[in-house]
């Protein structure tokens, strides 16, 4: 790496919080590194300290219980999710989104937590976490707080995390298990690519929801559908919630068009 930084690997949450407090503003947290390290290489980030959280006790914990739901530690990789039988059985929507993220090598290294704290509008995990009512457990030296993901994303690459705070775990409620759904991600190629748009539709206990990626400054949750909504109603409501831009990957018009196409298609398919 051309850019030089110090590497810290605290072995307790207390030490991690202390390091984050001490170096607030000058430190970046490292989990999978698949976003952080290219960004440092490209000069986007210039941290004095890179703090690895993979040595924290329980960082790679991935556990389901009927009481607590699915607990995803900050070092759980995308492929850890896909390889765990209980996740595949109980949270097929989470797996559908996970499976469409980046390439196999990156899925072996990239973490679920990293995909959401980066707060990219094209996050593939965010739509699933939004539709499944997932909660962020946020930790700092001052203590712990919980925040639903519907309030977590505040702008392009911006989250509700305050200086000194980190995402300690993600909880996907047990009540969201067995939600059905499908994620359609528009890409140039079948393999590794960022999404042009992504539309997730879930149906759980009669409640239909949509979440859209690459279509607004943050991933967007669209809720409040009724059973009688037809394709026109669904299209109108989803389009009203998004504000895509034109960029190097697609025009605003094309994005809006494809979001509508996918919203209608998913209304048919997710039954």
């Amino acid at each position, binding site marked *: *790496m051309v*850019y*030089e*930084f*110090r*590497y810290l*690997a605290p072995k307790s949450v207390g030490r991690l919080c202390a390091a984050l407090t001490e170096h607030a503003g000058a430190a970046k947290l*490292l989990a*999978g*590194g*698949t976003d952080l*390290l*290219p960004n*440092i*290489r*490209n000069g986007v980030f210039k941290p004095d300290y*890179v703090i*690895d959280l*993979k040595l924290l006790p329980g960082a790679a914990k991935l556990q389901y219980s009927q009481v607590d739901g699915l607990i995803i530690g900050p070092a759980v990789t995308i*492929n850890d999710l896909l390889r765990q039988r209980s996740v595949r059985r109980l949270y097929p929507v989470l797996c559908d989104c996970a499976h469409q993220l*980046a*390439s*196999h*090598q*990156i899925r*072996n*290294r990239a973490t679920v937590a990293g995909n959401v704290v980066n707060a990219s509008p094209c996050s593939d995990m965010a739509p699933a976490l939004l539709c499944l009512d997932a909660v962020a457990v946020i930790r700092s030296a001052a203590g712990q707080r919980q925040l639903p993901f519907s309030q977590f994303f505040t702008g392009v690459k911006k989250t509700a995390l305050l200086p000194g705070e980190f995402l300690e775990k993600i909880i996907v409620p047990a009540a969201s298990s067995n939600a059905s759904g499908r994620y359609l991600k528009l890409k140039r190629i*079948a*393999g*590794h690519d960022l999404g042009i748009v992504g539309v997730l539709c879930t149906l759980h206990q009669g409640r239909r929801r949509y979440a859209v990626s690459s279509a607004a400054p943050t991933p967007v949750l669209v809720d409040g559908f009724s059973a009688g909504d037809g394709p026109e109603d669904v299209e109108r409501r989803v389009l009203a919630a998004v504000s895509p831009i034109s960029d190097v990957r697609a025009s605003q018009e094309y994005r809006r068009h494809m979001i509508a196409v996918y919203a209608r298609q998913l209304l048919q398919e997710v039954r």
Partner: protein
Amino acid sequence: MRISLTVNGQRYTVDVAEHKTLLRCLREDLGLTGTKEGCGMGECGACTIIFNGRVVNACMILAVEANGATIETIEGEATGPGLSEIQTALERNNSAQCGFCTPGMVMSIKELLRDKPKPTIDEMKEAIEGNFCRCTGYVQIIEAILDLTGRSAEKGELKHV
């Protein structure tokens, strides 16, 4: 920072700068230049290695993160005097032209066949989706995997483009 790691069964202890990537450490400190640097940002897969049993991009891992890790690279692939089974299948199917992607491609195929000895063609494609090959168009590489999985008869069904 001093780290210890096992690469292709051999244990190494090296002093590395904290900001050095594992890829640079393998190439510059351990002299294992079979693993290539293409894009340096996780797009091309030329730096694919097996890290604790899983394929990863060595350009996006710090050397210090590999402390205690077990790593496999292309240098550990052929254990006898000749090529390995995977290398032989790639050679027989003309699966390389310039060869820059091949070390990473071999690693991805190796992990695939360990995980899924009988992969579907879609699983084969998924296993190498993170390995760019700008010469072959991938069909020859899939044909090599068909050979490796006893399905040579299906090779004619793939479309060459």
